[in-house]
């Protein structure tokens, strides 16, 4: 359970998130909203990459303020641009990076990397330089690099935005198959249509918090009366 208690976030004097309180328990939670509405900032709060200006975030009871490292073990994070999250030059090495940080031995790393690379159809690319992969393969590799650490929750910030249709479908399937609780920021309304809960962000506040149909209807309505 992720508990968000009266959270506000400022950048300098600008209020980016305003007094948000939520309890996230569902298996599939989507965050939608217009550009600059604070979705990415909110997502980064969930694993303690950023700390709120006021209020608290508790992940299974751990406060991101003082338990950042433990929280990041529980909450994996996949970014929009796979190019910026693949940190090793070779595919297999990159999957091993998080495991190394968790203290796994070389043999254990190889074993786990093999399993996850197989799962995402990347095994045949294990020795390739990561920069030659296609966009979809890179995003799958980024997801694999996070999932191999077996986090309890996964936050994905616009994981399909940069991808073409084929790659988008591939990544969408990977997200659907995640055993974890997933919190997905997306402009891809098809992706989130069968989620359990959709949060609509607007100017740093939550405009709607509902099942997909109702929430997306509110979102579309709100975007029309400008």
């Amino acid at each position, binding site marked *: 359970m992720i508990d968000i208690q009266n959270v506000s976030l400022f950048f300098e004097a600008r209020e980016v998130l305003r007094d948000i309180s939520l309890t996230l328990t569902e298996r599939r939670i989507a965050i939608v909203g217009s550009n600059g509405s604070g979705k990415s900032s909110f997502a980064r709060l969930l694993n303690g990459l950023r700390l709120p200006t006021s209020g608290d975030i508790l992940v299974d009871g751990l406060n991101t303020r003082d338990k950042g490292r433990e929280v990041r073990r529980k909450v994996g994070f996949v970014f929009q641009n796979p190019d910026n999250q693949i*940190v090793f030059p070779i595919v297999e090495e990159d999957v091993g990076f998080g495991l190394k940080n968790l203290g796994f031995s070389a043999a254990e790393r190889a074993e786990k990397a093999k399993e996850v690379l197989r799962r995402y159809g990347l095994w045949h690319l294990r020795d390739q330089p990561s920069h030659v992969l296609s966009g979809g393969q890179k995003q799958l590799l980024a997801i694999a690099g996070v999932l191999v650490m077996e986090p309890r929750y996964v936050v994905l910030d616009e994981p399909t935005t940069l991808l073409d249709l084929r790659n988008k479908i591939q990544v969408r399937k990977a997200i659907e198959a995640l055993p974890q609780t997933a919190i997905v920021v997306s402009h891809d309304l098809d992706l989130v249509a069968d989620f359990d809960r959709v949060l609509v962000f607007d100017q740093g506040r939550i405009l709607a918090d509902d099942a997909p149909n109702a929430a997306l209807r509110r979102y579309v309505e709100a975007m029309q009366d400008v």
Partner: protein
Amino acid sequence: MFDLYCDGHSPLHRMKPGWKILALAAAGTALFAVDHVVFSLGLLGLTLVLYRLAQLPLRRAWDQIRPVLWVFGLIFLAQLVFNSWQIGVFVILRFATLLMLAGLLTLTTRSSDMIEGIEAGLHPLRRVLPVARISLAISLTLRFIPVLSQVVQDVREAQKTRGLERNLIALAIPVVIRTIQTSEEIADAIDARGY
């Protein structure tokens, strides 16, 4: 360096990276310490034999020095003016041999193994050096050279369509901004994976 690893099963591929790095350091030192052209020629010959031993075509050895031939040209000219052509040849022979040896290391060692080798080598210094950080920095460098060159290429093309390709500032500013944004995101991604 990032793309250069050639998969293989030769004794050189199997040798521990730490030993290879040490051998390279020793050979490089000897190359410049022993002031005799026969020794340098011998080492060049040995280097070429090692390429064959690693099942690499000799063209790969040539590839190591081809990009810096113009530097060799400058060195040769300088030596010609200030010393003699013999010394010019000798200096270039030393540098070429060193580059080929260094290339042999990268051609037969995966970057991850190299990094582990460096980490292991620096282990005794872990109290005075941030060893894990150094090795991460090396991997990141290897990883992001192709990304950065892609950024430069993208920006150059974008500026070209606006007729700004000769304007260094129009090229530098977007490259720097994108690089800073990229590096912030990379830092987040590294944190997010428990580093």
